[in-house]
């Protein structure tokens, strides 16, 4: 097929990719977006195969089959919890492919037909450099998350200097190539240097920060693909690669913001000192506390069928009762069943929650007593614990040594997921730790209850 026809097909791909990104940004359409992207990709591949000048050899389908099989099996087999490392792996191979293409192009263009045009060599160098960094960096990220190498930051004195030296070395090689000596070994050396840099760049970063790093490397691979596009004067590569480069960069920033960290802190924080999260990450029994953003929780709520609100003294302190009712209204407008589970001693006086919820005009029939509520948790999707602590402490049920042992509690830990809204890891009235907070099904939403609840309502509305 002629170049122009192929380019038109590529335009279809571009349209598909833009729509894919757009759809991927909203929960309701995300899945469709992915399919549209896959369709666009198919169009591009077919167009390339029928493109005049592309000879289909026997190796091509074999290579494609091997790669696809590997991708398919890997993607199908992986456990839900291991998704991030899978993404890292696929990202890495993409970067590797870009680097290899650069190598081949250089090999093809460099020797006989004289000097390579400046912009083409820049593109080649960039895709080789970035692709290689992305390749080795992603593999390290994969290995860390897969716990093939230990997840916590690997640091040593002078690390910064060594890394900088390696990087500058790569740039020097690039400059050498550009200024004239288009020797292939220089490019090989550059790729080798970039691979080493990729490893050293990711090694010092802790496992918890890996998603951000993967997102960054993802953007890198996009850039490498765009650079490949310049090498080949191919718009579909330029646009698609750059879409990923730009949106990936944005996404990296957003993820950093969601973690309340600057990207620089994530990437370089470990150099010299181990980065400390801003909220306590280890709970009572040494379990891990998972903290979420209001947006995360909003999505959990919006996709639930049944939500039980468990108010406690913290709701009273925050005077969040009106906001809680407003949130319940928003959820109910989405067809979600909402009830309130009122523990007999929630708050600081008998009927404390009743006074406040009546003030906020919460209908009486929505208030459930302890027994009634406990019968419902097993079919509850999300328990939203708003400033309650002791009254949802499973130690009262399980731990004979606990001062509150024997008190009937609200068994929120029996629901599919629990979200706890409080300001810190501080204990409640009884002054004791709460193992609920380190339950794997629990996420914490830190902050003043009134503000958190308002954010949740806004978040759910926006979905």
């Amino acid at each position: 097929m002629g170049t122009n026809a192929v380019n038109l097909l590529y335009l279809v791909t571009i349209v598909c990719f833009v729509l894919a990104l757009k759809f991927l940004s909203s929960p309701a359409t995300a899945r469709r977006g992915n399919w549209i992207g896959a369709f666009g990709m198919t169009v591009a591949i077919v167009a390339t195969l029928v493109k005049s000048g592309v000879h289909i050899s026997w190796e091509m389908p074999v290579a494609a089959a091997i790669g696809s099989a590997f991708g398919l099996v890997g993607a199908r087999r992986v456990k839900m919890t291991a998704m991030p490392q899978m993404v890292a792996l696929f990202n890495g191979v993409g970067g590797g492919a870009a680097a290899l293409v650069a190598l081949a192009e250089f090999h093809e263009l460099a020797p006989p037909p004289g000097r390579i045009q400046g912009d083409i060599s820049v593109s080649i160098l960039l895709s080789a450099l970035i692709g290689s960094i992305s390749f080795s960096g992603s593999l390290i990220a994969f290995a860390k998350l897969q716990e093939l190498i230990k997840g916590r930051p690997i640091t040593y004195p002078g690390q910064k200097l060594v890394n900088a030296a390696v990087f500058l070395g790569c740039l020097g090689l690039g400059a050498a190539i550009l200024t004239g000596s288009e020797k292939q070994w220089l490019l090989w050396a550059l790729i080798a240097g970039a691979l080493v840099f990729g490893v050293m760049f990711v090694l010092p970063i802790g496992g918890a920060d890996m998603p951000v790093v993967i997102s960054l490397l993802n953007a890198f691979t996009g850039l490498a693909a765009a650079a490949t596009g310049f090498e080949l004067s191919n718009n579909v590569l330029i646009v698609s690669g750059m879409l990923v480069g730009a949106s990936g960069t944005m996404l990296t920033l957003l993820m950093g913001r969601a973690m309340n960290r600057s990207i620089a802190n994530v990437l370089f924080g470990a150099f010299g000192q181990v980065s400390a999260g801003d909220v306590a990450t280890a709970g009572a029994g040494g379990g891990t506390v998972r903290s979420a953003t209001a947006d995360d929780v909003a999505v959990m709520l919006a996709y639930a069928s049944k939500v039980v609100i468990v108010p406690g003294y913290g709701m009273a302190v925050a005077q969040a009762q009106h906001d809680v009712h407003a949130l319940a209204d928003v959820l109910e407008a989405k067809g979600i069943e909402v009830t309130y589970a009122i523990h007999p001693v929630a708050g600081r006086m008998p009927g404390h929650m009743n006074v406040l919820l009546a003030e906020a005009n919460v209908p009486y029939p929505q208030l459930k007593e302890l027994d009634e509520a406990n019968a419902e948790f097993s079919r509850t999707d999300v328990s939203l614990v708003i400033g309650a602590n002791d009254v949802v402490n499973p130690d009262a049920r399980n731990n004979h040594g606990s001062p509150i042992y024997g008190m009937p509690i609200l068994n929120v830990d029996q629901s599919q997921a629990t979200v706890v809204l409080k300001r810190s890891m501080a204990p409640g009235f009884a002054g004791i730790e709460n193992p609920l907070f380190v339950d794997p099904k629990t996420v914490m939403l830190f902050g003043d209850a009134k503000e958190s609840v308002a954010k949740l309502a806004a978040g759910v509305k926006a979905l």
Partner: protein
Amino acid sequence: MRLGIPKETSSDERRVALVPETVARLGDGVDVLVEAGAGDAAGFPDAAYTEAGAQIGDPWSADVVAKVASPTPDETAKLREGQVLIAFLQPLTDTAGVERLAAAGVHAFALESIPRITRAQSMDALSSQATVSGYKGALIAADRLPRFLPMLMTAAGTIPPAKVLVLGAGVAGLQAIATARRLGAVVSAFDVRPAVREQVESLGATFLDVGVSGEETEGGYARELTPEQQAAQQAELQKRIPTFDAVITTAAIPGRPAPKLITAEAVRAMRPGSVIVDLAAESGGNCELTEPGAEIVESGVTIVGTTNLPSTMPTHASQLLSRNVASLVGLFVSDGQLVIDWDDEIISGSSVTRREVSA
């Protein structure tokens, strides 16, 4: 012009027709003569009046006399021809009293008869006093109940919210609804006027549909039901009432005995400990068993027939009434002189002796 404020003589009347705060509002042309001790029961000592610019003296000598309750024969005797009297004169029921006033040649104006037009809202003493009654009625119900109004979930078990029914949702009824709701009760209400449903709901309460619907006359009052309608209403209510812990009734038709909404049988069907607060006791009560002025217990049900509730909250009841009276008095003053403008709809509407006087 001089305005006289006598001390109320009835023992259960603690209000006063004018409070010191309002004295100043009357303006320069009006001199106020307050009987010694007139405001004591309402919490307004003589000193407060003199400070506000009033004089302590003989109120009966003034051009206009404003008081709360209809004057006794003795008091009527102190009035002279041409004098203006403002008070709750019960013109539709106390014909004897009105005739006495007419005979004395007094220009008597009944606070009850002020037409309910927009301009007269600031003089609407029925509304202001009904507000007090409604509020107090709900408080009495809460006080007499052997149980909580609000829901409470405690370590010693759950207390469900009390169910309160308000019959007749005029000014007093609406206020009773609001107050009971504030205390956490689950409130239902019924009234014969169709417009009331939305008003009840606008206070967060539920309208109880008993299938009877009457009409609204000019001024917003209800028309009396036909005997059949009455019977239907009683029957339907009898079925519903036993589910309530407290019933507050305010149903009234101006000049007519209060409609009987709760039969003796209905009372006996209620749970022991239930409470009925009959704010219509003054005009005979909405409950067959109500004894006006008394509080009785009948088969475990407390029936409060207290009359004159506003007098139990004399400070604010007087303060509101005082503003009403002052606004009305304002109509009689022109350049500091007493002028009765018979063309004024409010003046002619509230006059109860004019026909006789001009006759």
